[in-house]
């Protein structure tokens, strides 16, 4: 059985080869008046093409566009939803990276497609199915400051619905896989279960595309009961930082897919491909009735570009060994 390979969200923007477009330089030039917004848009396009090429050359089955135009994992979407404004920089959990905090100041609503053109442009650059990327509604709420809603459930339902509408627009544009980034599911307590459900139920209802709920950094153990029966296709587990995710394998309903996050996206040390393949075999032995993908534990943007590319190659190598072992 072939183990499908995929990445988890954004990818380093900087080139590793001399002569390639350097988005950082172009943005700096734009900020100092020496380049235009059009130049930046072109650099984002070329960076996306390069990120897709890296994945295609390595043999990633389900590539991502790398979120080349995003400043962080929340605000690209939040700033275009009605009801949000964007405030100051704060630290993104324990990653020593930052994001601008969205603030909810009115009723959250979807005003029209936000990521669809990005998706279409990326999909036109590759023959493989591009996995679209969106923040998950529960985490978007937790990352935000709510100055509007009296009741968190109401806010979460509104965000879930709005992101569901964005997902529908992506589906209409041809997206067959959509990744929802949900780091806060790993930090939620059992008491948060109704809130998690309030967010994910409207998001997942009636989805045509396959959906991945990706939970980096910690295992969503405390709230898994609340999402178990929802119609997601795959759950992404960070098995590097959160070995407790192994125990969740037993809880995953039959026929679902688990994206095994077995390559450390937050450390430059390269894994041994055979050891990673062995871990995949362990999962398959424990739950032969599930489908599996192999992925990094989180976004590879926590690494420098050169190391991220090495991880992509190693990921594919490990998946090939695992596929052979488990044929």
């Amino acid at each position: 059985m072939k183990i499908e390979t995929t990445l988890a969200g954004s990818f380093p923007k900087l080139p590793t080869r001399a002569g390639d477009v350097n988005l950082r330089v172009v943005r700096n030039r734009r900020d100092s008046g020496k380049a235009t917004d059009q130049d930046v848009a072109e650099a984002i396009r070329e960076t996306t093409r390069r990120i897709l090429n890296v994945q295609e050359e390595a043999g990633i089955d389900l590539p991502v566009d790398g979120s080349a135009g995003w400043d962080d994992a929340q605000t690209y979407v939040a700033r275009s939803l009605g009801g949000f404004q964007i405030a100051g920089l704060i630290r993104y959990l324990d990653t020593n990276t930052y994001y601008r905090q969205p603030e909810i100041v009115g009723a959250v609503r979807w005003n029209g497609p936000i990521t669809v053109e990005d998706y279409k442009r990326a999909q036109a650059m590759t023959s493989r199915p591009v996995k679209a990327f969106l923040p998950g509604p529960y985490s978007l709420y937790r990352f935000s400051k709510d100055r509007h809603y009296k009741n968190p459930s109401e806010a979460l339902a509104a965000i879930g619905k709005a992101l569901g509408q964005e997902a529908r627009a992506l589906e209409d544009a041809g997206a067959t896989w959509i990744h929802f980034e949900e780091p806060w599911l790993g930090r939620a307590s059992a008491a948060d279960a109704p809130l998690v459900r309030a967010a994910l139920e409207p998001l997942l209802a009636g989805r045509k595309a396959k959906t991945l709920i990706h939970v980096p950094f910690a295992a969503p153990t405390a709230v898994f009961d609340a999402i178990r029966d929802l119609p997601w296709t795959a759950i992404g587990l960070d098995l590097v930082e959160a070995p407790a995710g192994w125990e969740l394998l037993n809880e995953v309903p039959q026929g679902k897919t688990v994206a095994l996050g077995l390559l450390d996206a937050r450390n430059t040390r390269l894994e041994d491909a055979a050891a990673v393949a062995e871990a995949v075999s362990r999962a398959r032995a424990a739950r032969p009735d599930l489908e599996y993908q192999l992925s990094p534990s989180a976004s590879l943007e926590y690494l420098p570009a050169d190391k991220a590319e090495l991880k992509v190659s190693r990921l594919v190598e490990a998946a090939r060994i695992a596929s052979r072992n488990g044929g």
Partner: protein
Amino acid sequence: MARGLWTTTVGSFPKPAHLEKARNQHARGELSQDALEKLEHEETIQVLKRQEEIGLDILVDGELYRGDMTTFFAERMPGFAISNPVRSYGNRYYRKPIAVGPIRRKKPLTVEWWKFAQSQTTKPVKGMLTGPYTMMDWSFNEHYPSREAMAMDLAEAIREEALALQEAGAKYIQIDEPAVSVRPEELSMAVRALGRATEGLKAKTITHICYGDFDVIYPALLDLPVDMIDLEMANSRYDLLDRFRSHPFTKEIGYGVLDVHSHRIESKDEVKQGILRGLDVLRPEQMYVDPDCGLKTRTVEEAFAKLQVMVDAVREVRQEKGITA
């Protein structure tokens, strides 16, 4: 008459544009090391002079010669390599340390800069280091079998540097641990590492932490083995004071009253109100008033304007409350 409400800063000051330009030229090989250092020394003198003019009690060298707070140290310590750029936000990048072998301190890291700064003023200048837990957490690790093993090796190296600063005459040694606040489950590891780094020091020891989930780490935070913990108070609208009411803050406190993320210059009244709120639950001799965090993200003029407001506010509170420095 009570004493207290001494004024200081957290550490970094903004680099003037011509110094940033010179650092970039140096990185591209277009400016010599000597020429860059000459400029860094000149600008450090200016930063010290302006702190004196404003009337701060305890000064810093401003760290104008440093880039990232972990990479600066890692570049000078065997056992570390430095990565290619990693993004921190938007279009901001930094080079991150990678532990590739046993980490050691082979030579002084900051002592010469401290001596230079102290020679420029009669006021005390703080020695400024990055703590072992933060150095570990903000680095990649290709060598050590565990996070704790790496943190404890760093603690040894940082302790040697702290002892050298003390030997050189530093009366205040600040060992910053901003990463401590984001992984509550590792607080005990951070306590052990910082305990080793500060073991045997007679100088007043300080640690700065920020951006954390204080609901989870307070009051365990008080276990950090230092004399003073420096906290951002203004950024959280002084919410921490409620926690101090239910569990008294038992150490000296670096009491942050300026939002370093905002371009806005605070009014004297709002800073005064923040200090007065603190005096409801803290003793003046516990309190060292300062900005929430390093000022390097502000413009030069914003930084000094904010500090002037802070010092003026402290003077008024001292006068009204009969507190002396």
